[in-house]
């Protein structure tokens, strides 16, 4: 996936260079345009990462909830609390 993303960026920049050469666009204008693209792409990636961070937080909470539920159930059922103990180190801060 990363390789594809790099190649897309590379192709896009190559096409832009060709177009700008043909049109005779000045370097300052090219730099400004590339700066805007960089900012847009960074924002888009940040959004993607943020969504996945949220997803991981949700997963962590779900696991914490399941661990608590299982532990409560095992205690109430007088069953050995082995499963949750196994999971605690993973989620410990």
């Amino acid at each position, binding site marked *: 996936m990363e390789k594809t993303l790099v190649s897309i960026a590379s192709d896009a920049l190559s096409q832009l260079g060709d177009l700008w050469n043909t049109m005779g666009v000045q370097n300052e204008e090219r730099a400004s345009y590339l700066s805007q693209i960089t900012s847009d792409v960074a924002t888009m990636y940040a959004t993607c990462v943020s969504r996945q961070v949220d997803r*991981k937080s949700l*997963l*962590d909470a*779900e*696991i914490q909830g*399941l*661990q608590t*539920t*299982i532990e409560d*159930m*095992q205690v*109430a*059922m*007088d*069953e*050995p609390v*082995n*499963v949750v*103990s*196994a*999971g*605690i*180190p*993973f989620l410990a801060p």
Partner: protein
Amino acid sequence: MIPPNPPFRTHHTPRPTPHLSVFQPSPNGLCLIPYRDSLEHIRGNLQETWDLRAATLREREGTLFQLYADVGAGIESGFSCTGDRVSLARIAQYDEEIKRVGGIKSERGAEVEGLAAQIKDLWEELGFGPRDEYERSVAQGSFGELGWGTLVISILSAKFQSLSAEKLAREEKIMVMGQGITTLWKRLATPEEEQTAFLEAHAGIGDDVISAVRRVIKSFNSQCRIEVPHTTSLSVLLLTFSLSTHPPHCSAKSICPTSRLSLRCAL
């Protein structure tokens, strides 16, 4: 760069729980999603066991509450509700309590049945029958309607004692009347066969026997008046057999020592 798997490791060897699906982490650990799925699987298995045990506890609770109601006892502390424990030990507690209260019910049931049988025997002897719904339940052996409370046993005991007293009173009355009729038979030279036939036809201590004996005595008294109206000794005899005021001496107990006296025994 691909991030490494989360460092999921156990701190100790899990204890075995054979009936549950125990999560066993792989040697390399698990990522969050498969770990969450494993936990969900375990929770599902636990829930299944939980539901079964909860249903068992509800069933035991129903049985126990019915037993408490049957024996008229209050709910013991610790059994007012199943609580939040669904362990096998909790189920065992219910089983133990059911056994204890069930034992009380069995003991009382035997006592109630015994008293009911004695009461029915006395009713039969005295010529009585059930007078109300409660006594009909006793007669029909519908012990479920009577219940197994201590009050039931008290009521039945009181009924039994009352009937026993009535039986004793009748036995004494018949004994006195029997002695009286025997004396009359002797005075009137009543044939042996006639006496025997009367005794066989009037066994027991029921109202019918007492009435029959009263009728015979009355009839004999009339006969005596008609046949020997001027006999001083018979006049005295008739006065003597006014049973309510002058009962003759009782010697029948030496003849029939059992409690089931009949007119025949009394004679």
